[in-house]
Every structure is written in C-alpha cells, then in structure tokens.
C-alpha cells in the first residue's frame, strides 16, 4: 500500500504489545486510520509513514551522514568502549534481538531489556516461584472473571478489553456472563468500563494480595481495613471456574515491585487448587516480550545479562541499570524516543529520529517498512508485514554489519 485513499490488510500493528494482526490500514489525505479503530496504532503508523522521504539515512554528531560513515563511527565508539550496553528494544523484532544478542556476545557487552526503564524490580518474581499464564484466546473464551490490577489498558493497549471479549459484539464463546473488575483508585478509561471496582491506594497492594491469600486459606484477617473488599473479591473468584488477573507496571514498578508480583503469583497458585486462574502481564512496549524471549534462549537468562566475562551472567537489577554499571557507550535498538543516557555517547538504530545521539541510523520501521517476527504480550509469535515501501535497512541488518566489524 502506498497511495492515498488505498487500504491494505490485514497487517500486524506494532503500536503496543497486543500486536493486533487483524488491522486494515486506510490512508487518506489526513493521515492514517486503522480498522478496527485504534488511536495508538494509528499514531504508530502515522509517525513512521513517509518518513523515509524526509529524514536523513543517518546522522553523526547531529549532522546528516551516509550509512557507511555512520557505521564506521559506531564501530569506532564500540571498539573504544570498555563497557557497552545494548538496550531499547521497544519496537525490536525477534530478528533484531537475535542480531543484538549476537553482537553483545561478541563485544562482551551488557544487554539491558528491563534495566533502564520500565518494570525492572518486578521481573525476578517468576524465577522465585513461577507463574500461571494463558494466551488471549484462552482468557477470552474461558475466564468468567477478569481482574485488571492497577492498569489502564484502554490507554496503553487500547483493544485489549475488546480482544478479551468485553464490550459490544463480544467474541467470547462464554457469551455475556462475564465480569470485568478493576482494582484502581484512579478514574481511568478502563475503570470506566468496569462492571465492578475496588479502590484502595497503590501502597496497599501488598496488603491486599497477601490478605486475599490469607482469606483463601481461611485465616482470619487482622490489621487491615480491606476485609470487606477482599472478602467480596474472593467470593467473586470462588464463584467462577476460570479467572484472570491482568497486571503490569502499576503493580510491579518501583520499590517493592518484586514482592507485590510474588504475592500475586502466590495468590494465583493457591487459587489454582480449586479453579483455573491465570495471569496476563502487560509489557511496556511491543518489542519487549520478543527481546526477552531471545535473550533467554541465547543466554539462558532473561532481563538483564552481562556478557563481559566471556559468558552470560544474570544481572539482578534493584534499580535502573545504566548509572551504576560503568557503561561508557549506549547502543539503543529500536528504542522509543528518549534522551540519551547522561554523559554516555549513544548509537541509535531506530525508525524515529535521535538527534542527540552521537550516531543515529534510520531503520526500516518494523511492521511498517520491514517484515519480521514479534512476540505478543502473551508470548504468541506473530508475523509482521511491510505494508509501506521503505529504503532503510533493518536494525538486524545493521547489527549484523557491526558484528562483521568485530570478527575474531
């Protein structure tokens, strides 16, 4: 698709971790619209459509440059680095991530997927106890109760509730007998769609989760004012055969995030004895899940991995990584627009401008100008298409070129 007034689809949208693959693009004089409508997705496509004609292929020190010059400068920076860090991955494809981890291995670099921003403290909860999860279709067709815990998917993953079978024309095989319950004291768009709401301050989430677990074990609750709310919630859960908890950075970000996530998984595990209960995590970006998966299979670890010793070592992050790790060059791969890390030269390989980077090379936007693979937030791998023509290389191709510069 290239011409105004034309449509193309279905294609997979990389606007968020939902990776809706039923999207038709309508291009008009005013920009791009998607069917089914999604503001976030339209913004994703619009920000990248036609950019190839306007943006320089690369910049070095903020000045336009050709790709070869930019790659040469990037090679110099990486060669001089003692501790390079590869990060970003917000819109990275699996192919990008595979090439990135290969380069990190060769360079002895740090790979930070969770560590720079996002839900960094929550990630270690799964290795401690595990988790029960399911794909979207399982939740849509089986969960009679969906609890959204302090997230606002209507804003961050706009079609999530519809894809889980809530709303007009529900596609759930369960029909209408389903409840959407939102735990959040904020009046979010998601809370506005809830059948039921529970409101307490975020600071009380750990108390609520452990309290619910205690109630489930028929222990008396003491020292909490949430007895009524928790009792009601447990009653709701006990009334169904299948339930889901949707969670994300609202639960896991910041101090204590690991404990809160652990408490959720312990609760779900306990509830699973009498009914089927699963969780669904909302990642911060479309490329996060795929990058995590690639890092796991190539290194054996997920999250943040240091190849500096010649083999992968898990870096347990208790705070954002870059500041205290002695990183001296940052290689940002398909990252969301952001300022470079303070005082650290940045090489940016991405589909949007990075004017402050020491080296920036424009890439073919995944799912817009470049095909590939991405992993949906529930782990389902999906094909990305390239509905718009483009002339830029993929991040994977650039990373492979850089790898060639460091051949042993």
């Amino acid at each position, binding site marked *: 698709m290239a011409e105004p007034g034309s449509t193309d689809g279905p294609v997979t949208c990389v606007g968020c971790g939902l990776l809706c693959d039923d999207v038709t693009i309508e291009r008009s004089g005013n920009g791009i619209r998607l069917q089914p409508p999604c503001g976030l997705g339209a913004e994703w496509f619009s920000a990248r459509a036609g950019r190839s004609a306007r943006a320089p292929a690369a910049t070095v020190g903020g000045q336009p440059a050709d790709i070869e010059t930019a790659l040469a400068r990037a090679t110099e920076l990486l060669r001089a680095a003692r501790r390079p860090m590869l990060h970003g991955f917000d819109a990275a494809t699996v192919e990008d991530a595979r090439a990135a981890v290969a380069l990190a291995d060769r360079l002895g670099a740090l790979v930070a997927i969770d560590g720079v921003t996002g839900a960094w403290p929550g990630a270690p909860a799964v290795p401690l106890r*595990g988790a029960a999860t399911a794909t979207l279709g399982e939740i849509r067709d089986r969960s009679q109760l969906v609890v959204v815990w302090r997230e606002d998917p209507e804003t961050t993953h706009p079609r999530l509730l519809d894809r889980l079978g809530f709303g007009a024309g529900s596609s759930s095989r369960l029909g209408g007998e389903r409840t959407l319950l939102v735990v959040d004291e904020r009046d979010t768009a998601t809370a506005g769609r809830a059948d039921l709401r529970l409101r307490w301050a975020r600071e009380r989430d750990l108390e609520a989760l452990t309290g619910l677990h205690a109630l489930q074990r028929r222990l008396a609750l003491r020292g909490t004012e949430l007895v009524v709310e928790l009792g009601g919630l447990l009653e709701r859960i006990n009334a169904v055969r299948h339930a889901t908890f949707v969670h994300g950075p609202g639960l896991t970000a910041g101090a204590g995030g690991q404990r809160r996530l652990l408490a959720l998984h312990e609760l779900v*595990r306990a509830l699973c004895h009498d009914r089927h209960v699963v969780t669904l995590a909302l990642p911060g970006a479309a490329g996060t899940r795929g990058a995590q998966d690639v890092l796991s299979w*190539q290194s*054996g670890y997920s999250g943040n991995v240091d190849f500096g010793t010649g083999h992968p070592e898990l870096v347990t992050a208790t705070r954002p990584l870059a500041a205290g790790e002695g990183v001296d060059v940052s290689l940002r791969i398909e990252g969301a627009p952001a300022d470079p890390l303070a005082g650290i030269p940045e090489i940016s390989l991405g589909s949007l401008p990075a004017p402050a980077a020491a080296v920036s090379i424009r890439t073919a936007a995944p799912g817009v100008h470049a095909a590939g693979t991405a992993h949906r937030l529930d*782990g389902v791998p999906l094909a990305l298409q390239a509905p718009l023509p483009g002339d830029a290389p993929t991040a994977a191709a650039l990373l492979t070129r850089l790898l060639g510069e460091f051949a042993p």
Partner: protein
Amino acid sequence: MTAIRITGGRIHDPANDVDGEIREICIQDGKVVDEVGPDARRIDARGMVVMPGGVDIHAHIAGPAVNAARRLSPDERRDHPMDRTEVLRSGTGGLVPSTFATGYRYSLLGYTTVVEAAAPPLAARHVLAELRDTPMIDKAFLILMGNNQVLFELIRESGGGVSARLRDAIAWWLQATGGYGVKLVNPGGVELWKQSNGNVDSLDDDVAGFGVTPRQVLEAIGGAVDELGLPHPVHIHANNLGAPGNADTTLDTMRTLAGRQAHFAHLQFHSYGGKPGGGLGGSVSRAPELVDYLNDHPELTADIGQVMFGPAVTMTADAYVSALLRDLDGGKWISHDTEVETGCGIVPYRYRAGNYVHALQWGIGLELFLLARDPWQVMLSTDHPNGGSFLSYPKLIRLLMDRAFREDQMGRANQRAIRRTALPDGLDREYTLNEIAIITRAAPARRLGLRDKGHLGIGADADVTIYHDRADREDMFSTPRYVIKGGELAVEDGDLRRADDGLLLSSRAGFDPDVSRVLEPLFGARYTVAFEHYPVRDPALREPARIVEAVRK
C-alpha cells in the same frame, strides 16, 4: 567439502547388518561414498568404535516451554557457564541449556539429529527461531494435535473416524508450521484441564463441549497420520501419565491403534500398576505386560523416558500432571495455556534413589529396555529434561551394557521398589555395542523415516561418531574421539572444531488446498490470530531444510 577416509575402526552399523567388522568408511560432499581420492583426510580409527551419529527421537530442546523453563531456573545454570570462543557463541548449560549450548553439547556427545517432541503449532515461529539458533545438529519438531479444538470439530463431524478433511487439515498444519510429525499428548485431557482443572480417566470419557472421546481422537488422528503416510507415525504421550494403574490405559491405547503404525513416548511413565486414583506409593511395575504387547506388535515402537537419579526439569504439555507435581514438590511451577491447541506445565524436580516411587520409575525404565525382545522397538531417551538431562545418556548406556554396574546402582536404590520389578530376578542381559547402536541411532532414524540417517551405507548422510573402545562405557560414550557432521569434522578430542547451522527436517504431505475454506471459519471463531498470518512462510526460519515427502497409502 572435505573428503575423509576412516580406517581401522570397528564399524557398528546395524541397519546394514554390520556388527563390529573392521572396514573403511569414505566420506565426500557430506555423504558416505564408495571411495575417495588419495588427498582425503585420513582418520586412523584403530582401537575405536565407529557408529552413525546419534539420533534423539524424543527430547525437549526448543520452544516456549523450554524457554520458560530457562527463565524459571537461572540459579540452576549459574554453575554451568560456557565461554565464547573464536568460533562458538557463549551460553549456559545445566538441565535446560541455552540454544547454542544445547547444540554444542549434543554434538560433543556424538548426537547429530534431535527431535523436539512437543511444539504448539501456534508457536511454530518461536520454535523455528530457537532451532535456527541451535547449531551443530539437524533438528525436527512434532506438532501438538491431541487437544486441538478445530480437529475435535472435524473428528466429531466425521463421527469419530478418519475423514479426508481431517487428513487434509493435518497435512495443512504440517505445511503451515514446518513440523515433521504429529504428537498427541493426553488426548482430550489437556482440554479438560484448561476448562476447569479436569482430566480424563479413560479413553471413553467425553471431552466436555466437543462430543469426542480420547479414543476417537487416537483413532482419527492416528489413522489419518497412517493414511497420509507421514515419515514418522503418530507419536503418543498416552493418557494418565504417571498415575497408578495407568498400564491399563496404555494397553488400551495400544489396542486402539492395533494394526496401525504408532510410536509411544516415554513408555516408562505409562507402565504402572496399582490402584487407579490411589497414591503413587501404591504403584508397582507392569513393564513386563507392556513389553509382551510390544513384542507381539512390531507396528508399535516406544522410547523409554528413563529417569536418572538426580535433578531434572519436568516439562510437559500435559499440564494436569504438572499441577500434581507442583503439589507433590511444593516448589516452582509454571503453567501456560495455549488457545485452541494445548497446555504446558513446568516443575523442577529431583529423582532420589531412596524414594520408593523414583526408584520404581528407574527400575521400570530398565525393565523395559532389558525385557524387550527387539531393540528396534525400544529407543533410548530420558524425555530430556523430564527424566534427566540428555547428558546422562552415557550413564544410561553403561547401565544397559554393564550388569555389575547396574547391580551396584540397584543396591543404592530403594529396595522395596527394586523388589517390585523384574530386575532382581536374574535379568542379567547386557546390551551389546550393536544393540546400543540400534537404540541410539539406527532405530530412531528408521522410525523417523530418515532414510539417510542412522546408518553408514553408501549415500547416507556423513554423520559419524567415533569412540575410543573403553571398558568403562560411560566414559566411552561421554567423550567421542571424533564427531563428523554432514561430512565435516565437528568434534575432535572433546573440542568443537567448527560451528555448523544444521538442517531443519520437515515433512510434506499433499492436501486439497480447499481445506483452507473449512479451516478459516473454525480459526476465526477460536483463535486470536488471523488465519492468513498463521502459516510460517519466512525462508529465514524455514531454511536450510530437508523436506521428507509422505508416501500416501
């Protein structure tokens, strides 16, 4: 490509009736050939044993379940780092190694072909990408179809039998995913688990909401695979895995498939007597009955799924069983439900010699190996990593080849359990090198329909493993002197010499393309991915590949 002449070695090539003869093997352009020129590299294999490269018919090495297991146990791999070298990628080992480490370690063990035995078709892209990052070995994967709601619909439509539509759908699915064969895991039971933590007890239980029974699923899909003439027959993880008394279910499953080709996975886990619904502590061995049945039915084969004392990671699409292990163990647990197709459960585990149940499982596995009349019907596996790592294969080989060692190990295990097996009853069989060559390469290759593998005849793939002939068979099989993969020297003296991508092995059966019209509306009603995006078409994931054509009956 390299030309190689292997001289002086004792050849064990049971597929070609060669049992320890000293012969030359010549290699050129990746194949075993009649003769090579004088410039060929010469490998002096005097005092050594030469076999085809190992073929693992049932292991779990790639895909979302394997990757989830990696995430679940970083502590388990911390002590097993693998450094990068000039030719090799870094990684981590342990029970669930990283992809590169998996390929390297299989190669170092003399294995050149491995089958990932349980891939959700919906996750084919993920499986393929991991396999692309698993070097040194050729690899195939089996797709999970025993709890597929779309196939349930087609089976119900056909009244429980094989239909042309079902055949076409299975062939379509293999084409869409790049899979090699069809795997059934606890047919019908996993669907009930996902509905409400349920399971089936017998082959005639109703799979609620679908109007089919496990027996119908077995007959229809097993029959369809048989009629399609896929290179590998239906690969079955029977119902009631691990349950006391499950030997009845296993025998019923075998009888259901009587007369059709079928492969039974990890038979050890399906060979228990005892009271159905009772505690595992009441289990006893019924391996002899199952072996008798196998002995009388050459159309059936099995891999054993031996448990080895020590750490393991249970990893199965049979999520109901995983939940039982969760409660037994109390430790880490992952469960993941994949829409329309399957479930998955993961629990790190440890088999203890002093534990009655674990010792019984260990003994039953050995019984199956030692009682089987025809080694072509029983293939070596630990259901890696469920019964233990593939790295324990050399020890298992020693248990089979060395009676004194086996008896020593029996003496360390729970005696009440050992007494409930046939092991103490004069079961003094010792496998020969030729029999080991059968159960580790010739039989798996033949059962997989890989005509170029598992033997050293002219035209075979030049996948060759050369071992020092040592009395300590564990030592011998742990460190091959040479491993040749695709005609190139891959391992020499325990060191990897080169990195090779390996091939993807896929199968192909013809089908009526109109089956898409049948499948598309069924997909639309059940999946959350678009029908047109489901097939994997990306050459970077599907190539380099070897396609093995089905031979329609």
